[in-house]
């Protein structure tokens, strides 16, 4: 009959108390939480202490969300350039010459070697360029990164295969994440989150960042630094590169690279002691120092070209050989530019250009206002529903209200343990749950009322009400769950926060609206032995 055994009571209360305790850390701010954790004596095992807390979404705490995409075309361009250099090196090594040089084709290069003997010497070396992909140990069938095709008349085409391209993009994303992490860390922002998204994207989330301009400036640059020489009159192997602050004017720069960003071991912003202008001091590693020393010794009086992402940012004249391995980049820079440049040089180059495909920034003011508005809406909704339930069902309404408050507490408890993110739509989800959670109670109560009206005794009416309403409660919650689960898998960021709250709400409602309410009603019945329903 309407019995609730002692062990069942203890179990129910224990689950609820633990669930509510889990929410405790989320009610405190960072300092309070630390103080709370410190206040707990050392003999308490750490797994007993609730330490996890809800994470506030960027829309509530303010901050920047930037979605970057690896520019596949740019990556391919870089790849083809590398391939071209490799092929040129192999041609030189094997002393084979290609008719009409090395042609660039779609995703690769083409050479023409009509002599069969030459081709036989060349091809094995070219095949070394093509690395197998896939994991042989896992038995994955991979192809090669580069396809090599030969026609009878001696045209050899090397192209990046589909697999090779995808593999490169995957690696480029991994490398980019590392470089981005170093760059973002260098700006001194707290707790940035940098993660891969999809095949070719990186999501950067920086809480508290109000103006992502500097971040975007840092991520928008590839950061590829080269030390070259300005070409002299009549030189042939040159690139025409734009000169910074020269109104788009282009200058000839030798193709040969003396040293590059990878040779640097340090770069720091500083001020020139004489002109007091912002500069960047840098230091080379041994290889870079040697090559730089040799080049500056041989080319005294000529102009160096310091090239960043295919733009000449400075072209100082070599006054004396620089053999100590350190130097400086000066130019017409602002302090901020110098800071960014130093960060770019220290963090290394990105494997390819990154494009910003989505940006969402919320100022801290709006975040605070949203939290306040969300709290207000939650309280008002709770008061509305609590008054309404009490006015309709009296004492039973009070039971439902207690269950409702526990229900909201448990959602927070579960979210804390999962370290789930609370977003503004998530708050909307909580408010909505307040309205829908009492549905289960309403179903039960209305059924009880009906059963008693149909002539059952109060105790059997309550029993029947719970039993008969239960199937409908399961139904009504599964219908909501269908929508919530789909939303969870398809939504991103804030919308997903809504789905999380909704799913957790569905789980806890069974415990609170069914088990907890039933327990309260059973206890009430045994103490009061009522003859009529209180509603």
């Amino acid at each position, binding site marked *: 009959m309407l019995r609730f055994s002692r062990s069942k009571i203890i179990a129910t209360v224990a689950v609820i108390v633990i669930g509510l305790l889990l929410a405790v850390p989320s009610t405190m701010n960072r300092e309070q939480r630390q103080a709370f954790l410190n206040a707990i004596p050392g003999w308490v095992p750490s797994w007993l202490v609730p330490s996890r807390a809800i994470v506030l979404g960027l829309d509530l705490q303010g901050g920047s969300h930037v979605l970057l995409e690896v520019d596949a075309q740019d990556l391919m361009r870089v790849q083809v350039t590398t391939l071209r250099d490799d092929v040129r090196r192999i041609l030189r090594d094997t002393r084979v010459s290609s008719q009409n040089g090395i042609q660039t084709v779609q995703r690769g290069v083409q050479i023409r070697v009509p002599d069969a003997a030459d081709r036989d010497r060349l091809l094995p070396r070219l095949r070394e360029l093509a690395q197998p992909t896939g994991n042989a140990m896992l038995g994955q069938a991979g192809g090669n990164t580069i396809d090599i095709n030969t026609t009878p008349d001696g045209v050899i085409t090397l192209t990046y295969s589909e697999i090779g391209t995808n593999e490169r993009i995957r690696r480029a994303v991994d490398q980019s994440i590392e470089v981005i992490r170093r760059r973002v860390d260098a700006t001194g922002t707290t707790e940035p989150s940098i993660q891969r998204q999809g095949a070719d994207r990186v999501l950067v989330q920086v809480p508290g960042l109000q103006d992502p301009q500097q971040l975007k400036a840092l991520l928008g640059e590839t950061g590829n630094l080269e030390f070259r020489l300005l070409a002299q009159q009549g030189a042939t192997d040159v690139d025409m590169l734009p000169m910074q602050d020269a109104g788009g004017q282009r200058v000839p720069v030798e193709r040969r690279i003396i040293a590059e960003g990878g040779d640097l071991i340090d770069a720091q912003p500083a001020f020139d002691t004489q002109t007091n202008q912002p500069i960047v001091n840098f230091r080379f590693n041994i290889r870079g120092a040697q090559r730089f020393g040799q080049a500056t010794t041989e080319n005294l009086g000529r102009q160096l070209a310091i090239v960043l992402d295919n733009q000449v940012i400075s072209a100082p004249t070599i006054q004396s050989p620089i053999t100590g391995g350190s130097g400086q980049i000066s130019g017409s820079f602002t302090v901020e530019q110098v800071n960014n440049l130093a960060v770019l040089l220290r963090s290394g180059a990105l494997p390819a250009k990154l494009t910003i*495909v989505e940006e969402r*920034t919320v100022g801290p003011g709006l975040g605070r206002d949203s939290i306040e*508005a969300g709290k207000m809406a939650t309280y008002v909704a709770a008061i509305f529903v609590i008054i309404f339930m009490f006015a309709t069902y009296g004492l039973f309404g009070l039971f439902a209200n207690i269950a409702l408050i526990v229900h909201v507490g448990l959602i927070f408890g579960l979210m804390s343990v999962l370290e789930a993110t609370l977003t503004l739509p998530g708050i909307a989800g909580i408010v909505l749950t307040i309205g829908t959670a009492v549905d289960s109670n*309403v179903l039960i109560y209305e059924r009880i009322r009906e059963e008693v009206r149909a002539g059952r005794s109060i105790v059997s009416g309550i029993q029947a009400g719970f039993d008969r309403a239960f199937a409908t409660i399961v139904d009504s919650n599964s219908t909501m769950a269908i929508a919530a689960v789909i939303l969870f898998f398809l939504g991103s960021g804030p919308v997903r926060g809504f789905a999380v709250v909704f799913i957790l709400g569905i789980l806890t409602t069974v415990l609170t609206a069914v088990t907890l309410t039933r327990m309260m009603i059973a206890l009430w019945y045994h103490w009061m032995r009522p003859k009529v329903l209180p509603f």
Partner: protein
Amino acid sequence: MRLVRLWPENSHFDFMRFRRFSFPLSAVISILTAVILLSGGLNFGIDFRGGTLMEIQAKSGQANVGQIRQTAEGFGFGDVEVQEFGTAGEVSLRFPIQEGGEAAQAAVVQKARDTFNGDYEFRRVETVGPRVSGELVQSGTIGVVLSVIAVLFYLWFRFERELAIASIIGTLHDIVLTIGFFVITGHEFNMTSIAAILTIVGYSLNETVVVFDRTRELMRRYKTMPAEELLNLSINHTMSRTVMTAATTALSLLALVLFGGQAIQGFAQVMLYGVVICTYSAICISSPMLIYIGLRGSEAVKVPEGRAAAAE
């Protein structure tokens, strides 16, 4: 203490009569929705259309909308929508998506920040490039389609064919009328709207399930009762619950509309409307639909005598 009763006990209201009004009414709204929708009437937000949205607030508390509009139009980034909202000098600016792919969008933000930074605080900046907006359209559409498929599967397992058909009609009706809300009011349609539609799908289904559970129960009890009478009885039996749940849900949504702040208001308004629509459709669309689909052909009445008795 006298307790509140929103719905009288033992009511014998003839709900089925309503179908003479509700069917034409819903049909007209659905057709209207389809017509406006096909003529491009959905006001897509930047999630789906791409572009840049900014919300700025005057540091002085008093925004000069005219000047902002004039300045922003002078940027040369196309048609700018400038709108004041709230009370504390908050203004929203919407720039259309820029030609020139993903990278071109950043220039808008840069320009606006440089121009308005002195007098205004930037409260929100959102830029969605063409590729991401295309993907969001895709995942939003998939979401709604998937939810309908999931609902179909659920109903297939849960109900007899006739009841399942009637409730899927109800759910589709609610989706169409919710989209109707967007096209008729010109309410912005974004990713949160998709969340609202999916939640409404859940709520709609919930409402029909509660009524149809009762219909099925009564079908087993009163084997010879005409469909119309039976459906009326089911609705009357569940009506006090329907009214209560609609009221508590609507109350909490009302709290969101009134106090939830501008960012969440749109969602709450749609949901509030959705609760009304779902309640209406469960009573005035799905249930009377069964009169035409034919209630008695369903499996439930073919339950052997013994089991039917046990179910009582």
